[in-house]
């Protein structure tokens, strides 16, 4: 482990994990604490505003962005986000949204520079790839688009999963293709979204895995909903849930 790594972080848990998958958030906390990282949770945090930004409602997105920047700038600790999608919003889109804003422009740059996606923080900041995790299952990793191409985080999740004892990690056919979620796209363009999802679900079922792992619960919300509708038994987990020391 990198000796110069920060010893405390702020967790930006994301609205989806807060409401729909709190167990993923708790797993993030346990993984970090097991590595002696003190976790702060600024409890005024809500949503980063990405749905409004992607939907074209930039004034609404800025309102949520200002709130989030205010909340996160109260501490100087690095920020850990267990999502590539929200991570891309904080690291790439806030600086664009607030470019030219005398107060929030510099704040957005400051926050962007100390925000890390969960797997990125473990591997690139802490220098950790082997955690004491074990899972006797056949699993596949779904790289979310915003993590893979938005934040250019390719290897960290795979490195962490490769070190999970007893787990057999298999590659999905067309692994790096979008699952069709796309936020509001899933509602506004539901027919295209569903067609893309069916392709991904076919690949998941063909791989005969027991668990699908991702770093974004947004994709998993969509894929687990599709799997459940199909009557599939495949489970979906956030990476942190696989690495959770409580599970091992």
């Amino acid at each position, binding site marked *: 482990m990198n000796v110069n790594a920060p010893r405390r972080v702020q967790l930006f848990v994301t609205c989806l994990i807060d409401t729909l998958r709190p167990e993923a958030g708790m797993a993030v906390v346990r993984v970090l604490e097991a590595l002696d990282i003190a976790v702060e949770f600024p409890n005024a945090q809500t949503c980063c505003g990405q749905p409004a930004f992607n939907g074209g409602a930039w004034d*609404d997105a800025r*309102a949520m962005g200002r709130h989030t920047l205010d909340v996160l700038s109260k501490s100087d600790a690095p920020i850990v986000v267990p999502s590539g999608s929200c991570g891309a919003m904080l690291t790439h889109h806030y600086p664009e949204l607030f470019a030219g804003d005398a107060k929030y422009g510099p704040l957005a740059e400051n926050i962007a520079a100390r925000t890390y996606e969960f797997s990125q923080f473990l591997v690139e900041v802490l220098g950790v790839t082997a955690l004491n995790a074990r899972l006797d299952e056949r699993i596949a990793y779904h790289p979310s688009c915003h993590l893979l191409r938005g934040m250019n985080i390719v290897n960290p999740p795979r490195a962490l999963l490769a070190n999970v004892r007893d787990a057999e990690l298999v590659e999905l056919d067309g692994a790096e293709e979008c699952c069709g979620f796309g936020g509001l796209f899933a509602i506004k363009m539901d*027919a295209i979204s569903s067609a893309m999802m069916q392709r991904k679900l076919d690949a998941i079922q063909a791989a005969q895995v027991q668990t699908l792992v991702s770093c974004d619960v947004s994709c998993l919300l969509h894929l687990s909903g599709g799997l459940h509708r199909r009557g599939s038994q495949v489970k979906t987990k956030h990476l942190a849930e696989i690495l959770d020391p409580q599970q091992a």
Partner: protein
Amino acid sequence: MTIPVPNVTFHERVDAALRDPILHTALDRSMSRFSELRRAALAAFADESATRARARLIRAHTLSRLDAYLEQFEANVQRAGGQVHFAADAAALNRIVGEIARAHRVKAVVKGKSMVSEETALNDALEAEGIRVVETDLGEYIVQLAGEHPSHIIAPAFHKTKEQVGQLFHEKINLPLTDDPAVMTAAARAKLRWEFLNADMGISGVNFGVAETGSICLVENEGNGRLTTTVPRVHVAVMGIERLVPNLDDLAVMLQVLARSATGQKLSVYTNLITGPRKNDEGDGPAELHIILLDNGRSRVLGGEVAEILYCIRCGACLNACPVYREIGGHAYGSVYSGPVGAVLTPALEGIAQWSALPQASTLCGMCKQVCPVQIDIPRMLLVERAQATHAGKMAWWLRLGLHLYAFTATKPALYRLAAGGARLGSRVLGAPQQGWIKKLPPPLNAWTKTRDFPAFAQKSFRAQWEARRARKDAERAGDSHA
């Protein structure tokens, strides 16, 4: 306004496309082939990233002083004996071509593939003047026989299976029914050979105009481009004003990325470099060369928020990589330019108001940006156009209201918490009969549950679990210190 706005909605076209199994066979076959070829070509290209970066710089540089390069190009074309025309819009381009045709008493035209001529609906304009127009690119010939328009910027008949083409050739050119592409190609070749020899005018597109030499470069794989530009007595080349490169060295860079990205070739089978009409001592070539530069909204785009889309070199790689294009094909877009680049370019050229659906048709997955040979940030421009669509009042009222309310709530933590509590309760009531899975959400969210279940919110939010855990730890600590 030149690109006709289709009279059915985007959603209707998408639904029709999604229900078309033959279209999906065609798309799956073509897309996996093109993507595979591109991947192999780039994997074998040692200088890939450096060359792509250089190609991007060349495009950025050229557009940053486009006015100067256009003047230089015009002067050098004229010096080589060619004639240059500027067309402000589609109607102007069609008028200029019509005038040239009349001056030369043109009865028959052969065309090499040109998306600019699709943009101006040039064939319709010429046919209205009684001129016979024959497309000579095999894909475009197929599409013309079928009475359709290209569904892909480099492969016009991308949406058709070979079986469909066999049927079409059987009906239109009396070829015995076959699904053998070689037999069909030979039949088309025989028909087209006659057309080349009898045409009075050849019309081609242009991949790049070279400012320093006044040359135009046209790449192709069938030889039809070479015949179109050399056999008839008049050659008319049509191009967008943005399609210039400063010099031949820059052209070499662009050609390296174009062929690899488009078809996975190191170089196209034919790379035509045309400088002026036939000289006195030359045996082949047209007596006159006319180059028409089309603006049609481009100079306005150049000064706006999505100017970067003009870097596009029309390789089609973003279409071949796009998961949305794969599901719906090119025609569903309803625009001349389809796929990711078309979704940005069409609203930029024609106005966001009537094309507001196109930038929405993306998950912003970033595949287009990843494959683009000149690294155009298409997802960013889709976002910009979504914001423009909202400003133009094109967002559904329920979504606008919903996002407003969401933003209002999310900036007030206590209210947010209350609202999340309400949503949790509601979702748990809805999900109660099916072990926490909601089978049918109320409108407008019911679009979600057409094909997907939705999980009820967690019984205890992260926030609540965190606070309970902290209270427990505090109590433990208090207990410890007490003992």
